[in-house]
């Protein structure tokens, strides 16, 4: 078993899931206090800057989730192990949630700062396209088809769709944009002092929430596969456990 698979197994064990839940709740609590109480208002935007502490980490988690979809899709196509397909499916679902959250939070921030809820700005437009791509990915996963073929097509969409992530990130540099530019390529904007600490803790908190959702969503995926295996078991004449372990081929 590879290191990545071992790490995944320990995180998705019930004990790992519970530890992640408590870590995520604690980090979100600390992040909320730092963002809403300890962090000072911005010289230009006043208290509205507090929206940055949820909007930017949500965008980071969306990037992270789709990067995991990309890596898991490549791993699936190379190994054909269904566990990689499960990881890609779980991460895409969580990524769609965080992308939608990023857009909604950005819109709430944009209204008082830009004077509009939405504008067809390059960053906003490419982010909307990103959402559509991964909603499409989830739609591909629901097509009534052979599970192995469906997983293969989903992996292809997961790999091709990731092309939009660097486009979203660099859109503010490539085109004229209302959206402020990220100061560094790794995605951490230039903020310092207590604002930097609040933003850093926000990144950690949202990453822990992502990991917890992944652990939970992977367990749900296994349980839902179990239902399908139990339904098929008497028709195929094999125990459900054997059907769940069947490597995806075809």
């Amino acid at each position, binding site marked *: 078993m590879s290191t990545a698979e071992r790490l995944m197994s320990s995180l998705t064990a019930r004990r790992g899931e519970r530890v992640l839940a408590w870590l995520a709740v604690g980090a979100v609590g600390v992040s909320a206090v730092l963002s809403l109480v300890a962090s000072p208002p911005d010289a230009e935007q006043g*208290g509205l800057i507090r929206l940055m502490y949820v909007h930017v980490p*949500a965008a980071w988690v969306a990037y992270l989730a789709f990067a995991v979809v990309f890596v898991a899709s490549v791993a699936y196509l190379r190994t054909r192990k269904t566990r990689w397909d499960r990881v890609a499916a779980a991460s895409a679902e969580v990524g769609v949630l965080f992308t*939608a959250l990023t857009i909604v939070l950005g819109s*709430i921030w944009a209204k*008082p700062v830009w004077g509009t809820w939405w504008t067809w700005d390059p960053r906003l437009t490419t982010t909307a396209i990103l959402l559509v791509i991964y909603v499409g990915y989830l739609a591909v996963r629901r097509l009534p088809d052979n599970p192995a073929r469906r997983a293969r097509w989903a992996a292809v969409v997961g790999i091709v769709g990731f092309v939009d992530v660097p486009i979203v990130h660099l859109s503010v540099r490539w085109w004229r944009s209302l959206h402020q530019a990220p100061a560094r390529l790794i995605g951490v904007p230039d903020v310092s002092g207590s604002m930097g600490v609040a933003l850093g803790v926000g990144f950690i908190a949202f990453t822990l929430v992502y990991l917890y959702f992944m652990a939970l969503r992977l367990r749900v995926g296994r*349980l839902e596969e179990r239902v399908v295996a*139990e339904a098929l078991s008497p028709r195929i004449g094999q125990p459900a456990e054997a059907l769940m372990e069947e490597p995806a081929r075809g």
Partner: protein
Amino acid sequence: MAETLAAARYAGYVVAGYLIAGVGLGAYARLLFHRARRARARAAAMVARRAGPQR
């Protein structure tokens, strides 16, 4: 007075943002728990039906 009103209006956007984030993430967690419970119950029902008296 105008400044206070503007600050209160801006605080409303911040509160709305944090509420939406909290409710959105909480609702997704609840949905996952619901899906897990439903899947476990359906799998258990199928096993029980198979183990029951055969006609």
